[in-house]
């Protein structure tokens, strides 16, 4: 069934169709409608889940951790300051290997207060051990939540589905809502081997001395590396049933492109439009969308960038004292593989619009220069 859905409601429907059993969330702009819709779905009986009202995001994630440890499928959603407050327990969820799925509406950090799109909130949680997906459309948001549960429960890792504040969260798009029986066919009930159980009492997360700590962290890292393969497998299974696929990355005219633009989230759609316009003029431009950021798809990125002459990375974030985070990671993927100039643009912070003209300007900048040592802040007031 097709329905006009805002991104936030696409999140709620994704959680409902995945048959989330425990939902613990705390409202925050621009995520509130996710929680509102889920609360209504629970109240009306459409979704048979325990809805736990909590007093903070730290408690929301803690409740999800308890639920997942007891073998329930747990879900939460947050944004920005809320995600930052979860930080401690994000490590816990990953280190305990709990397959929790969370939606994060990408929003800037205060001060000064800003509720608009910016990726610094989720990227600041890069090293917590969570898988990270960045969605371009509301359809992708809904589908990714379902795919994420399947992947998480196979590799025993939590996943964060990121969508841009307002550009997706509050923008209505036509979304195909899958039938429940088809989702059930794709995603069977979660039934972990080891869980909190009074009939089989165990202590979880006990002391892990230096003798064993590294081994367990290496297992978590291996699970991430293995997840690259599992995500691709499950996307294939998803495609068989629903005829939609997204990939670890999405390549658009990359094969013969001289310049490739690298984006994530909603800037991708604008860049796609720009690439199509340029192609009509016969200019060899390409686009690489990084959809899965953790685990980082090194091989896919190397494959996509193997022939181009220049790379333009657009970052809606800044790692203070370094550069845009995607640009830094793209460079790390290319190290020792090929020496191609990477132009890192920092743009669209705090929800500033990145339009076709901006992308045109960035590509022009890259055409004229051979190299840029530092990141380029695009659109700063003179």
């Amino acid at each position, binding site marked *: 069934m097709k329905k006009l859905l805002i991104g936030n409601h696409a999140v709620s429907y994704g959680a409902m169709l995945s048959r989330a059993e425990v939902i613990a969330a705390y409202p925050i702009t621009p995520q509130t409608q996710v929680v509102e819709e889920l609360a209504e779905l629970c109240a009306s009986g459409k979704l048979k889940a325990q809805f736990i009202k909590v007093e903070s995001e730290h408690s929301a994630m803690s409740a999800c951790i308890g639920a997942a440890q007891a073998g329930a499928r747990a879900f939460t959603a947050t944004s920005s300051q809320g995600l930052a407050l979860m930080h401690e327990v994000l490590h816990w969820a990953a280190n*305990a290997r709990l397959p929790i799925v969370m939606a994060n509406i990408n929003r800037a950090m205060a001060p000064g207060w800003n509720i608009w799109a910016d990726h610094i909130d989720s990227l600041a949680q890069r090293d917590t051990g969570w898988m990270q997906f960045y969605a371009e459309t509301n359809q992708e948001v809904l589908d990714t939540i379902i795919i994420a549960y399947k992947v998480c429960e196979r590799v025993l890792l939590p996943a964060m589905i990121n969508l841009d504040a307002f550009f997706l969260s509050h923008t209505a798009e036509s979304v195909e809502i899958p039938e429940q029986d088809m989702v059930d066919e794709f995603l069977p009930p979660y039934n972990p081997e*080891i869980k909190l159980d009074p009939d089989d009492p165990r*202590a*979880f997360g006990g002391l892990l001395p230096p003798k064993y700590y590294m081994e367990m962290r290496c297992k978590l890292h291996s699970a991430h590396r293995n997840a690259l393969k599992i995500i691709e497998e499950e996307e294939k299974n998803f495609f068989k049933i629903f005829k939609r696929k997204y990939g670890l990355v999405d390549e658009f005219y990359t094969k013969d492109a001289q310049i490739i633009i690298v984006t994530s989230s909603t800037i991708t759609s604008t860049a796609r439009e720009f690439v199509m316009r340029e192609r009509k003029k016969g200019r060899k431009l390409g686009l690489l969308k990084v959809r899965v950021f953790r685990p980082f798809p090194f091989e896919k990125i190397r494959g996509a960038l193997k022939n181009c002459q220049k790379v333009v990375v657009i970052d809606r974030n800044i790692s203070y004292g370094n550069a845009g985070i995607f640009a830094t990671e793209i460079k790390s993927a290319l190290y020792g593989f090929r020496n191609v100039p990477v132009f890192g643009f920092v743009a669209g912070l705090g929800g500033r619009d990145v339009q076709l003209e901006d992308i045109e300007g960035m590509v022009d900048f890259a055409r004229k220069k051979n190299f840029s040592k530092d990141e380029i802040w695009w659109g700063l007031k003179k």
Partner: protein
Amino acid sequence: MKENQKLPEIVVSSGSMKINKTGSWRNLRPEIDYSKCIRCMICWKFCPDACIKINKEGIKLAPRENLKKEPAPEIDYDYCKGCGICAEECPAKCIAMLKEKK
């Protein structure tokens, strides 16, 4: 099989943690003066480690005749770490924290 492969994916005990008798950590030892204890069970409610058991038979030493057959609290010294929360919360002030004899 190599040692690393034998390790589980998650940090979990193979059974109940009852084997870990935490009573040996104790420096202070709570002792209940049953001649003052009013059997309110507030100590049982507050114990963070579930180390206060309920003796359903009752204890003959009691401040009043009618309390002798009431369920009475008993400290499980195998696990009590001696935090003193029971003594702090006791409204009858009948739990003393004494120096543990090693």
